[in-house]
């Protein structure tokens, strides 16, 4: 009876004990996480501070970084490009001033990044300081460059929070960034409008590949995959409806469908052997050729509408905000607000008679005007993005000296 105490204290102790236990479990979990994501290789410390670093976690972002590397090369400014893809096209490019290096694809790469010594680091990878990639105390400035005009609140939670600066293509999403900063009590990020290298690159490609006029409109059906995608929901009914219009129909299934929904895809392909099934690695040619894009809701519709300047038909817009930063904000995401400006929505009832809908999109003057308006708003500095970005990085570094 050494520990006899009064009931209030006893109960409080009990509650606290539970708290202490859960805190203990949390602490132990943290310890194991540290172990799990620690690199077995020792991190080689580079003695010198690198002035400019680009970090790319995947080769697919080369379309973001290519123009920037070219600009550094042109200005004869030394740049270091770290990639986590062994077959990143950057590695095979011929640069004199851009030092490229594959830094591994696992924890070792992040360990290396976490102890980096650099002035300005540019990256399009979200989740800095949230996942394995932590801010290095020896990096003066982390700059984020988006890989789409899309909302950045579409990143998984806290994706942008620990960057110092964001380089946007337009003003359309700066409010939501500020809103999150306020909500989370974070220091305001430096937001600059610089354009979008990826669009610049695409636009350049379009200029270099003038398209031939189609004899009849080419309708591209490029669905997404999964249970709510067009092919799964409407299947042959949608294809039949499209064939019924008499237009040229091209179906480009999502690459994932080939593995995940092979049976469904195979049966459709067997049923419509005469249809054009497109499986090109690069979607540029087919996008360039098509007059109208029918898609579920995916990033490619912005490329099609804003860069190619052609209308779209979008199907399902159901979107689970749960894992994304958008969940924390009440306001609707920008991309949902602008969708009706870029084309029309496909409803099930339209499938009985789809031609008027397609014709309206193909011929509507107002859709064309609206696309231009949206483009003006969200994509500024066309063709100048690489120059602006490098200017920004140089001035940023200059400010540290």
């Amino acid at each position, binding site marked *: *009876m*050494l*520990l*006899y*105490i*009064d*009931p*209030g*204290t*006893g*109960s*409080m*102790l*009990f*509650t*606290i*004990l539970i*708290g*202490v236990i*859960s*805190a203990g479990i*949390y*602490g132990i*979990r*943290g310890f194991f*996480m540290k172990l*799990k994501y620690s690199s077995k290789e020792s991190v080689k410390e580079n003695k010198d501070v690198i002035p400019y670093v680009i970090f790319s976690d995947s080769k697919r972002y080369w379309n973001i970084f290519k123009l920037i590397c070219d600009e550094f090369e042109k200005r004869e400014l030394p740049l270091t490009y770290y990639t986590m893809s062994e077959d990143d096209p950057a590695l095979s490019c011929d640069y004199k001033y851009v030092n490229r290096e594959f830094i591994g694809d696992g924890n070792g790469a992040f360990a290396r990044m976490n102890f980096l010594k650099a002035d300005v680091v540019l990256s399009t990878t979200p989740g800095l*300081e*949230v*996942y394995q990639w932590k801010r290095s105390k020896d990096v003066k400035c982390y700059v984020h460059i988006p890989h789409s005009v899309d909302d950045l609140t579409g990143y998984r*939670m*806290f994706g942008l*929070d620990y960057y110092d600066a964001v380089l946007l293509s337009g003003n359309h999403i700066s409010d939501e960034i500020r809103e999150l900063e306020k909500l*989370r*009590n*974070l220091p305001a990020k430096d937001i600059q409008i610089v354009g979008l290298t990826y669009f610049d690159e695409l636009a350049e490609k379009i200029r270099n590949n003038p398209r031939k006029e189609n004899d009849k409109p080419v309708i591209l059906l490029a669905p997404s995959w999964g249970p709510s995608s067009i092919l799964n929901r409407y299947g042959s009914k949608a294809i039949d409806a499209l064939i019924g219009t008499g237009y040229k129909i091209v179906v480009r299934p999502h690459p994932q469908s080939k593995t995940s929904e092979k049976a469904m895809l195979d049966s459709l392909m067997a049923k419509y052997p005469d249809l054009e099934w497109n499986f090109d690695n690069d979607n540029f040619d087919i996008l360039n050729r098509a007059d109208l894009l029918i898609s579920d809701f995916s990033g490619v519709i912005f490329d099609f509408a804003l860069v190619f300047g052609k209308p779209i038909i979008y199907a399902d817009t159901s979107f689970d905000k*749960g*894992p994304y930063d958008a*969940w*924390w904000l009440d306001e609707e995401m920008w991309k949902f607000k602008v969708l009706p400006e870029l084309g029309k929505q496909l409803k099930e009832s339209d499938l009985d008679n789809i031609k008027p809908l397609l014709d309206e999109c193909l011929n509507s003057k107002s859709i064309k005007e609206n696309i231009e308006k949206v483009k003006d708003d969200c994509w500024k500095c066309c063709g100048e993005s690489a120059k602006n970005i490098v200017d920004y990085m140089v001035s940023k570094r200059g400010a540290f000296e």
Partner: protein
Amino acid sequence: MDLFDIIYTIIIGPLKLLFEVIYTLAYYMCSSPGLSIIALSLVMNFLVLPLYAKADKMQEEQNNIEKKLKRGVDHIKKTFKGDERYMMLQTYYRQNNYKPTDALKGSISLLLEVPFFMAAYAFLSNLNVLKHASFGPIVDLGAPDQMLSVFGITLNLLPILMTLINIISSYIYTKGLPAKAKVQLYVMAGLFLVLLYDSPAGLVFYWTLNNLFSLVKNIFYKLKNPKLVLSILSSLVSVIGLLFVIVKHPFTFNQTVLVVAVLLAMQLPLLLYLFKDKLKFKEREDKPADSKIFVLSTIALALLTGLLIPTQLINSSPTEFMNTVTMENPLVYVLSAFCLAFGTFVLWCNVFYNLLGGNKVKRILNYFIVVVLFVFVVDYFFFGDNAGQLSLYLRFNNSLYSETAFKIKNIIIVIFVSLVCLVLYKLKNKFVLILSEVLIIASIILSCVNIYGIGTVINQYKKSLNVNNNDDIVFNLSQDEENVVVFMMDRQIGELVPYIFNEVPGLKEKYAGFTFYPNTISYSNCTKSALPSVYGGYEYTPKEINERSKESLYDKVSESYKVLPMLFGENGFNVTITDVTSGIKDDIFDNLENVTYYNTIGSIQYDEYRGMYDQRLYERLKRNVFCYSIVRCVPTFFQQLFYNFGAYNDVDYYYELVEQENGYSRADHVLTSFMDNYQVLKALPELTNISKDNPKSFTMIYNLTAHDVAILQEPAFEPQRLIDNTDYDKEHEIRLPLFGGGELKISTREDAKTYECNAASLIQIGNYLDYLREEGVYDNTRVIIVADHGWEMDVSGDDPSMMYNPVLMVKDFNSKDFSVDNSFMTNADTPYLACKDIVNEAVNPITGNSLTDVNKKSDDIQHVLYTLEFLNIKSNEYTYSLENGAYWYSFFGNDALNQDNWLKDIK
């Protein structure tokens, strides 16, 4: 002390000590164990209240932030899986400055409550005063109450009452909480009922009070304006109390003053509440208080009271503080004192400092602790102990500072020091810091020196013990040839012999053949200066020794010790010597012809009494060394508060002391050092070897049976575990001597001890005489019983004569009858008496002077030294000091017991 002991002493020890002080003070005020429990419960609960409030506040904050984060946390937990979920949570927590480990922070202050409960429990559950004490309807606080009787079944009412209060309290506390919390508390209440049902009523009463307090606390926490309600209640209680005091006059004057003061103070909260707007003080700029000075001061206090003073105390006589059972180094007392001091000042003072501390409070506490530190230092170093000697129980043999003038002087100095501190603290904060640091360093250095000293002495002592225990002590006597046995009985008083012979049946018969010399004086009042002349004769009286002022005292005294061993040894006697004293080393007998030396004291094993006594002393010293430091440091007008007649607020001991002080007939232990000596006398027959083959012998036994005195069981005058002489003492209130002429009325405990141990010594030597008779060597053995000095008993009042009246009894060869010789003698006659007629030339073998020279006795004046210097001889001493209250007596004429013959020399 193992590690657990150390941690326990640091954390729980100071609290237990605090509760003991509170309880003892309450007990001292009201003499009721039950009321004292109420006082203890109140103080304890008020002490832990800030801890509780802090924990409550922290938990509320914790709950609020958890509530705020709940939506996000739930969403993250629902949306993400595995590692990503953890990473998201971590980021979310970080952005909201929340750490799940914060739960620990709230629990620390709550966990701090636990030691308080533990300390109060540890204290109450071992409290003897509760046994057989009644309180109101409770018959015995030390047993289950058994107050309820239903259909012939006896039930304990208090545990049921406690549980009821517990349930009500839980009901109020859990209002608005989920059902799980409610059930949890009710189950706990039920559990405690089962567990505590058979506990002693005192403990259950205490727990019931705690629960009542908790109930009141819970009600207040639910109130809208608890401060106002509390103020009004306090005011009401105060008014009712005052009315009660005025109408009923229940207290003594002193108590009334105190009670009225407390009751009036209880009006303050309401007054402050009503006038708080007008009382608004100018808010000073709230700069943070300097907690460094507080921490440093508490460290300095801990070092002063836990290290420096204890080491100084132990170093004054390290062997005396050694536990003779476990042989544990007395530094264990320093360790426990340091743990207590560290816990009190460094741990708990800082805990409350940080818990209570707003900056304003902290600044006041800073000043307060600095004042305490410097008052302590000044008191310890400049108001040294003038309360006389300390007993092993750390009781002063004089009462503590009774002089009013001294107290007033102390008060003035304390006030002066406080003011100086205030000025220094205000003006030169840094200076105070430096002073504390200097104090810390000085304490450590001085303590190290002390510890080194203690260690050296203890090691030497242990070595000597080891040598000792290996020896088999044998006193060889010759069956046919001459034997001389001298008992040097330290402090045995001649004047008591006739009373003891009259009182103990058959004792006189044992001493047949002895001549008793009542008219004997010694040349000093303590062994260090009195013994040399017993061993070496008139050449070694203090006066003579001081005249050879160029030789070291050590050499002169050890020379005196060697006189008889050398003389007898050179004359073909087999010489046996025991127990040198006064710091003389036994190697002085090395290489002497025919001489064997033994340490006998403490060499005889006995188990009956020793363990019990030493364990009690051990526990008490572990607690009281720190208390002693506090007593030595606090201003004199507070000393009695902490010292209370040597009980140091140990209420059981206080109770026991009161009982003992009021009488001299009862005791529950026997002094170890008495036993160490008494057992030697008792074992003498077994230690003696009588043989025809043995040559003639000279044996000199030094013994302290009459010196390290204790209460003994009468009429046998034997040690016993529990002693009760009440009836016997009543019958023997007035003692008469054998030969008439005077009476002895013992009325103090010290006198009773002295008398009883003198008797025990004579009885045991008498038994040895019987043994010699049985062995047929009585006639060829000369026995001398002598003491180095007498002792001042309370019965003798101002008469110094008993102090200088050593026992002297001589039985010569073939002597048959007991006789009394009133010739004037001194104990310096011993060498002459021992060697008379049996050595060729009775001369001091070292100086060549005759031992038979008795002319000095008939000198008109004997110079007798009075001194308080009884400690061991130091290497730098040359003469007996006449400083520190020492002086000479001039003894005229030849009647030792006539106090008119004693004249104090005034320089």
